[in-house]
């Protein structure tokens, strides 16, 4: 029982990352009709926003070390610490949550520029060409990041207040074996809030209503005198911001490296397909489902029966789903029906 709960918890945070990326992918696909292979790169850019923020906050100056008296010693002290003392140290400690403030404008600008500068010329072109050009863009972004930040993963610290593990088992009376890192709990909460926010935005606002209408029937919405193109730019930027924030918050869990985006992209596409192209709920459901399945498959008990299953479970599920339910779990008819 404990093991099962533990695996579900372990799967949730990975599933949350999948769900956030897949949500943006399927949103862009459903509205703009564009298959965006560069979406994983947006996740990676978000993660590197955290790296940049950490670098900026810890910019240091050399000062004389007063504690050592018998020779001239210098130590590196971050400017912030020098200026604000303990407050500065606290700001540095909270660099990951603070970098969200950097991620949002960066991804907003990047999303709008990408849509206006590149994607909009590909609305009328085939899906194969959309895949190819965004794949090229993903390579370019990845290589730029590699040139700037190097090829090695950059470790990012979570705030020390949430450094340890939460003994979730004791909260629910399930035994002390179930413990869960605090930061993953934060990540999970954050994802749920973001997901709920996006859904509320689309379901409850007039803007969201027109976007949903545009997903259903773009022409009719246009005939009603609504400039749907303009709204779709915002949708694209929204998807970019969601992916970026997911990347930023994921940085303490997995040290960001330049091919992070590609790694997540492949799985996110599988998630979108399993959930059903253009279905937002399906993407979220499939994201969490596949995350949990993956962590179950990596249990030793399961691996003893099916060796190597943890490596292929996601792809296997995708193949089975596509063959049995071609529209995916919650796919609507009429989208990509060929």
């Amino acid at each position, binding site marked *: 029982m404990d093991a099962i709960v533990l695996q579900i918890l372990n799967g949730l945070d990975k599933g949350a990352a999948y769900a956030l990326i897949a949500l943006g992918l399927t949103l862009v696909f459903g509205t703009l009709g564009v298959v965006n292979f560069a979406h994983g790169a947006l996740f990676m850019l978000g993660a590197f926003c955290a790296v940049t923020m950490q670098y900026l906050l810890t910019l240091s100056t050399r000062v004389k070390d007063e504690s050592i008296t018998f020779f001239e010693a210098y130590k590196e002290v971050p400017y912030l610490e020098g200026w604000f003392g303990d407050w500065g140290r606290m700001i540095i400690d909270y660099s990951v949550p603070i970098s969200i403030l950097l991620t949002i404008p960066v991804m907003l600008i990047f999303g709008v520029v990408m849509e206006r500068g590149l994607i909009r010329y590909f609305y009328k072109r085939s*899906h194969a060409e959309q895949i*190819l050009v965004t794949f090229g863009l993903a390579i370019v972004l990845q290589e730029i990041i590699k040139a700037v930040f190097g090829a090695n993963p950059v470790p990012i610290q979570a705030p020390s207040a949430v450094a340890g593990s939460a003994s979730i088992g004791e909260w629910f009376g399930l035994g002390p074996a179930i413990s869960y890192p605090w930061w993953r709990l934060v990540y999970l909460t954050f994802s749920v809030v973001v997901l709920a926010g996006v859904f509320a935005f689309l379901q409850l606002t007039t803007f969201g209503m027109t976007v949903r209408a545009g997903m259903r029937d773009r022409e009719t919405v246009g005939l009603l005198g609504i400039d749907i193109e303009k709204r779709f730019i915002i949708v694209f930027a929204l998807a970019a911001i969601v992916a970026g924030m997911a990347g930023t918050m994921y940085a303490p869990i997995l040290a960001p490296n330049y091919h992070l985006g590609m790694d997540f992209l492949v799985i996110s596409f599988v998630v979108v*397909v399993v959930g059903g192209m253009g279905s937002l709920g399906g993407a979220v459901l499939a994201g969490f489902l596949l995350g949990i399945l993956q962590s179950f498959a990596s249990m030793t008990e399961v691996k003893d029966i099916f060796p190597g299953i943890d490596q*292929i479970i996601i792809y296997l599920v995708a193949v089975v789903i596509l063959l049995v339910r071609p529209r995916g779990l919650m796919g609507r008819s009429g989208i990509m029906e060929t």
Partner: protein
Amino acid sequence: MSAPTTAAERKKAISDPDFDVSTRQLPPRGPETKPMTNVDKDWLAIVAFTVIVLGMPWWLQPLGAAYPDLMQKFAIYGIFALGFNLLFGLTGYLSFGHAAFLGIGSYAAVWSFKLFTMNIIPAVLFAMLVAAVAAVFIGFISLRRSGIYFSILTLALAQMCYNLAYSVLTPITNGETGLRVLRDDPRVLDAMTGTERTGSLIGSLFGEKMVGYPGFYLCAVLLIIAFYIALRIMRSPFGMMLRAIKSNQHRMIYTGFNPRPYMLTIFVVSGMYSGLAGALLAITDPLAGAERMQWTASGEVVLMTILGGAGTISGPILGAGIIKYFENIFSALNDSALSSAFSFLPPAPREFLVTIVSPFVGEGWHLTLGILFMVIVIFLPGGIMEGIRRIWKLVTRRGSSSSKTEVQPAE
């Protein structure tokens, strides 16, 4: 190709036993000019291609690429891209998992070296057979869907192969270390014939070790054969069916054709091409690793094909050559090489130029590749071959309007 055709040549074309009436084009109105028939053009293309490929050691000399290791890479990746193009160029099905067949071919060839003999003929045949079996399996599953679903299914299945090669199949693939040929492998056939292997363990053909120039000529000859077969496929009624699938599958079904068997056949053929390329990689360097199957490798063959021109026959080979050439040249450039290249400049602008250029070469050459690729997809979706055709049209526009024959994409 609009070489002037004389009446004599025309007569020859008609008396040619291979001449196919259905491919004959109506002569244009006007003076005595007649377009070449497809059969004529094909023979011209094959002869020209043979000359170009076998002449590589000479005409690549000024480009600094005339050494066998690089040239055999051109040939091998040419075969790989040719095979990919048979699928993508003809039918429009974008497979993102073709590297799986490349890897499978490599593993199969190395196993043939280990188990049977160091002779390369069984290795090539075995690799193509195994790749074909894998392609039947993967194709049967992924061809049930089309469009982006097909791309994702092939991607998922190839990633599955890659992950399996790293984990469960380690006894077969030797995991991260990579599979290599060892001195004490059984090699049943060699033991039976009493052939004793001395020296380094390299695949051989009739006692000739496949390194250096023999290795290159082997790859070159196979590339020419592969080119010929691809040309025949494109010209055949079967190729016409595949193009019909690309242009309108529904209409094809309405006229009473089932596209599935055609698709599966070309998928398997394409997989066998990749298997052959994988086998050649293993022959010229008897080591097979799983990284050959990673999806970035599948992306590379897509890049080659698009860069050269999907759907044309020589485009993918050109693309493969260009990418492998620049990979080799660019990745060797570093800052000091750059400064010496710009040494004619005064120091300050030289430093500036080196700083500007250095992120794009050496380690960062993939950046150049990515940008080039985006530019091609955005501005020239037909690849370099379309660019050449456009320039050709500009040049020949001044000629007589009667010579305006639409050039076949296969040229």
